[in-house]
């Protein structure tokens, strides 16, 4: 497998006359933490859906984990993890049951599965909660669990769509600790977020505006380029020109 975890060229998605994603081209290297930023309605979620095989692109090329998104979408799914904005875990199943289910789906053999499950529960400190329904868990723990389940099968790339939305700063920090742990092991992290301070945690960052990529570089370089004191300001400068806001 080559060095490029994700590669797109002129990737486009249109719905009738509306271009949700307009010819984006970029590359993400293995082991990179890549921040995919943009205002609501800029096209981030659509882009992720194309990369994870949920939506078929209208035109353009893309490869994820070395597989073509058009022809080999199902193969891609073995090598990726996904944490969606809306949902990741079954609310009416317990912590243990969710881990068991997703591990099993990804083909982990039973003994490994059991071991991993115990490992994970211990790591997250959820021993007391293992038989609690996910919907009864506080949001922060849910998100951490969702992330852990997403990477249970050790995928090469994990896609995170607004994973820290609505969560307190301490939990966010803990969450990013988990992310770093996986990144250190070589996992590629593709994360979208609203929190600009999190952008600083990424190796490189791209900012989408009105369906296209308006900027792509490391946070340091971007701040310099836009003569801004923070990523917040960079974002503000770019997003100000946007014509599309909420979906």
């Amino acid at each position, binding site marked *: 497998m080559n060095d490029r975890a994700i590669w797109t060229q002129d990737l486009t998605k249109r719905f009738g006359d509306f271009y949700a994603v307009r010819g984006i081209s970029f590359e993400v290297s293995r082991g990179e933490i890549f921040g995919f930023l943009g205002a609501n309605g800029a096209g981030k979620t659509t882009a992720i859906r194309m990369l*994870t*095989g*949920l*939506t*078929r692109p209208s035109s353009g090329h893309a490869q994820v984990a070395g597989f073509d998104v058009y022809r080999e*979408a*199902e193969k891609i*799914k*073995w090598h*990726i993890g*996904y944490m*969606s904005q*809306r*949902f*990741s875990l*079954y609310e*009416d*199943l317990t912590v243990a*049951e969710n881990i*068991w*289910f*997703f591990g*099993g*789906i*990804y*083909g982990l053999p039973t003994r490994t599965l059991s071991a991993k499950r115990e490992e994970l529960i211990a790591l997250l400190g959820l021993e007391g909660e293992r038989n609690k*329904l996910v919907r009864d868990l506080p949001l922060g723990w849910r998100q951490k669990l969702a992330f852990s389940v997403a990477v249970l099968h050790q995928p090469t790339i994990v896609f995170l769509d607004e994973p820290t939305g609505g969560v307190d700063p301490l939990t966010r920090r803990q969450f990013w600790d988990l992310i770093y742990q996986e990144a250190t092991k070589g996992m590629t992290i593709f994360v979208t977020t609203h929190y600009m301070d999190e952008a600083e945690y990424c190796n490189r960052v791209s900012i989408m505006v009105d369906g296209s990529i308006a900027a792509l570089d490391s946070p340091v370089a971007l701040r310099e380029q836009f003569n801004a004191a923070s990523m917040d300001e960079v974002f503000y400068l770019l997003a100000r020109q946007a014509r599309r806001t909420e979906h």
Partner: protein
Amino acid sequence: MRTVWFLLIKEFRQIFRNPTLVRIIFLVPVMQLLILPLAADYEIRNITLAVVDHDRSSASRELVSKIAASTYFLVASAPATYASALRSVEEGDCDIILEIPHGFGRELARDQNTTVMIAANAINGVKAGLGSSYLGAIINEFSGGVLVQHRKVRREGIVVMSVNWFNPQMNYALFMVPGILAVLVTMMGSYMAALNIVREKETGTIEQVNVTPIRKHHFILGKLIPFWILGMVVFTIGLIVGRIAYGVVPEGSVVLLYGFVALFLLSIMGLGLLISTYAATQQQAMFISFFFIMIFILLSGLFTSIESMPAWAQVISRMNPVTYFVEVMRMVILKGSSALDILPQAGAVLIFGVVFTLWAVMNYRKTS
């Protein structure tokens, strides 16, 4: 295949963690099976009669008491005029009016012809038809009896000796139980899987499945199997209730019955699945399902016979899997029909099942 196992475990856990759902799935069919067959009775009985007797002779009174003696009729009132009798029909207090003319007894004694009038509330055409025909038969017998009395003519006539097979007591409940059970299983089978899948679409949990390498036919199996099992359980409970409450014991092979039900459930669930691929919300799924199921149930021959429908309706009825289900239930349970007898029905249901399921599988896309 291992995937399916994990899917099944998840599905069952979710179902049983939902107590309302479980209650609905099991209680509703049982309650309906207990009560509804009692209500489904076509038998012509207790037809209320208003007799307008202008004659008041011993002959007319004799005729009326003969009618009153029959189980078919209830002589409810004796209004003085036809008009007031008509009013009671209007108000729903009476089904049929019998008007006996003045001079009835006299003419009868003189061996002259005399005419009585029957006016029936024909909103329910069959009830009116049968009711007036029974009434006519009783009057005819009375008339014949009078003639014999006067020794005008020998007792003449063709007597009908009738025998009833398979249900000699003419027990309607016996007839309805298999049919109602069929309808209940149908509703369960088609609604449950459809609603479940659409709920996942609506809440978005289906995306979490679509993003995994789960193959689409595994996912579909994982949805069908639990509800198929539930359907079979409901059917079993239904048979038990039918046995305990109504004494319905299958005349034919129970194995055959189960085999057919298994096939039918797959078929009707295929329809539910198909509907779920077209519906975006649970509300849509519900309406679409109800639309089809209602047509299926009413045109299945459950309550009204198929042969009496116009040709085009019979065609629709033949394209309706529930028709075959009701037929087979009645044939095997009440008449002890054999596998050979129900082969055509099984074949039809199989074809439907294959068509629905294939169509649904083709429609279902993990990538939109």
